[in-house]
């Protein structure tokens, strides 16, 4: 097992710890666990980034030298990093910590899944089709988009929790920002994610055109990324129609993220050209 993989399994626990602090902050409504959560998450993200860079260095030491974004293990590591990074930016800008529960949960699940023995973590050289700068651009932009959608899904879940609360006196939802702010924040995350997903699909199409001579071939992976894109395009338009209020948008947002997850993992169960992503 490469050292980077050992580092990442340690990071899994730090993400888990951040999750515990964020939950504590929500339940006990104290500042301290919140601050601890933020700093733990920063530490986890820094370690995550170090793991990524270390793996890059290790691949060079083994003589292959590639950006570590070429299999499901490496993409999970990068996804966790994107989620944590984007969330920390949102927390810094809007001073809301409740979303941290979902952000640290997603990052935790991603690295925990990557650390499972069934997920190949060895550094393998790239087969010729994967040696492309367009592929690197494709994976990076796709995963930034996926991460934004993950956080949008977290915010939408908060929205649903808050709007389903019929006993505000219980105080469970006190720490969740008001519905309008959540709705606005979801929208911002989705526009950000939509832009990156669009760039991701486009760079993927350019890569496919270079490798196989067609920019679009309706293989399941491509089709599912288009389905995801169409769902978010629907969401953007549904917002413009009166009658589609925050709650329906929040549900669409969760459906969109389910499509993201299927594009990411589920498609491997279907036949196709893509080896992993």
């Amino acid at each position, binding site marked *: 097992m490469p050292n980077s993989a050992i580092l990442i399994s340690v990071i899994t626990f730090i993400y888990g710890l951040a999750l515990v602090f964020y939950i504590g902050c929500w339940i006990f409504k104290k500042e301290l666990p919140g601050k601890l959560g933020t700093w733990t998450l920063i530490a986890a993200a820094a370690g995550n980034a170090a793991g990524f860079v270390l793996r890059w260095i290790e691949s060079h030491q083994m003589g292959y030298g590639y950006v570590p974004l070429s299999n499901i293990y490496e993409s999970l590591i990068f996804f966790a990093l994107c989620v944590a990074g984007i969330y920390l930016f949102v927390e810094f800008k809007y001073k809301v910590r409740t979303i941290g529960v979902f952000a640290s949960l997603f990052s935790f699940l991603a690295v925990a899944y990557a650390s499972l023995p069934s997920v190949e973590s060895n550094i393998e050289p790239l087969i010729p*089709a994967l*040696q492309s700068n367009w592929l690197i651009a494709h994976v990076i932009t796709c995963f930034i988009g996926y991460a934004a959608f993950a956080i949008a899904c977290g915010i939408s879940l908060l929205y649903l929790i808050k709007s389903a609360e019929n006993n505000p006196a219980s105080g469970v939802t006190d720490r969740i920002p008001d519905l309008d702010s959540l709705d606005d924040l979801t929208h911002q995350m989705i526009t950000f994610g939509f832009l990156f997903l669009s760039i991701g699909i486009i760079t993927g199409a350019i890569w496919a055109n270079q*490798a196989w*001579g067609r920019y679009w071939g*309706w293989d399941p992976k491509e089709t599912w990324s*288009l389905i995801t894109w*169409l769902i978010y*395009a629907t969401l953007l338009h549904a917002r413009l129609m009166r009658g589609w209020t925050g709650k329906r948008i929040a549900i669409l947002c969760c459906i969109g993220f389910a499509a993201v997850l299927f594009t990411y993992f589920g498609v491997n169960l*279907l036949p196709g050209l893509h080896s992993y992503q």
Partner: protein
Amino acid sequence: MKTKNKNGTAIERIWHFFASVRLSVVLLLTLAATSIIGTVIPQNADPAAYERKFGQPVYTVLESLNMFDMYHSWWFRLLLCVLIVNIIVCSIQRLKSTWRIIFPKTPAYQPERFRKSAGRVQWQAAGASAEALKKMFEPYMRKHFRNIKVENPPENQGIMIFGEKGRWTRLGVYAVHFSVLLLMLGGLIGSIFGFEGYVNIPAGETRQAFSLKNSNQTQKFGFAIRCDDFNVSHYPSGRPKEYRSDIAIIDNGKVAVTHKLRVNAPLTYKGITIFQSSYGKTPSGSFNVVFTDNEDGTRITKKAAIGETVDLPEGSGELIIRDYSNSFSLRGHNMGPSFLGMLKPESGQPRPLLLPVNHPSFDKMRGGQYQISVKDVEFIQYTGLQIARDPGVPVVYTGFIIMIAGCYVTFFMFHRKICIELQPEDNGARILVAGISQRNRTGTKNAVKRLAQKLDRMARQTGKIS
């Protein structure tokens, strides 16, 4: 679209049907939902395989709905066409009403809307007169905003400076929609004028034509491709690292281009793009066919090559070597590299013959007088090239760029109007900074806050000087 004849209302109704965002929401969701089908049912596979999987009745139904090539079916194309009409009609409809907002002759500012706007900032600037502040703020506004207008509202002694920014960004969304049209147009051009195919060229040989994908036709390049050399390099683990063909394009009898073709680095010549896609082995030149007498074991060896005819021993007929396959599959068993022949005895029916290179005794079970096998086969590497021509690609790529730019403009830039109101007061002036925008209220509030801070700093400086 007002028509004066009696069909006017019907046309209007159709127009409004296509102009609605509701329709586009339905369409986008329907496209998403139906696209799933083609990922669950593998597309364009062998009809016999489908029939085995689904059974005859289900197969017939699915086939009649074009489920096995659904992305090219009439109904999926119809959905795309409706989407196109929807986008075009909707954009025309919107542009008709927003054109004058986007490009007004004189931009209008309504003071009351600014005075009531969310996120406005007010403060007192001591020691600076409204007039002095105006002299300082106006050039600043002229530098950073457009369509500046300075007014003295009739209801008081104040001065109002208006300005705006980013009016053109309202066109971003039309760019996004236009890019969708370009993608569809590019796809259409590709499907009409483009093709996809493949050709295998052994090292040292030249090909003039290639096989078209999903059909058994061949097509001429209009030039020739010669493969001068082919190399595969491997990682220590045995994985392929790089495959490379040194190819030459021969046009009008002369070498026009030579190129080292690698995966992800195609060559385009006269609109036809050549991709390195695979490689393999193929027999080169002649080999030997061995006839072993089943009774006394005597052997007779004869030279043969693909496409040639070999006389059977003692004039008992002939054997035609017709074809070669890298991995011939016989009832699910992979026989490996094999030659396919046709045996024509002097009397009796011709019959096909399979000659696997690695299983010389395979032919024993046929019986007959001779057991036939092949030996001394020499292989050379061939390079597998993919061939594509798609004149729609430039249109599609233009669509890509416009889509990214349009999305960026739509999501992250916005049109905003800004107002500074200066009210003279006993000891200085009262400053109001406000902004309004249609889309990005948070962004406008932040911009107003930053502008107020900037102006405050400027006002303090004059306060000190005067």
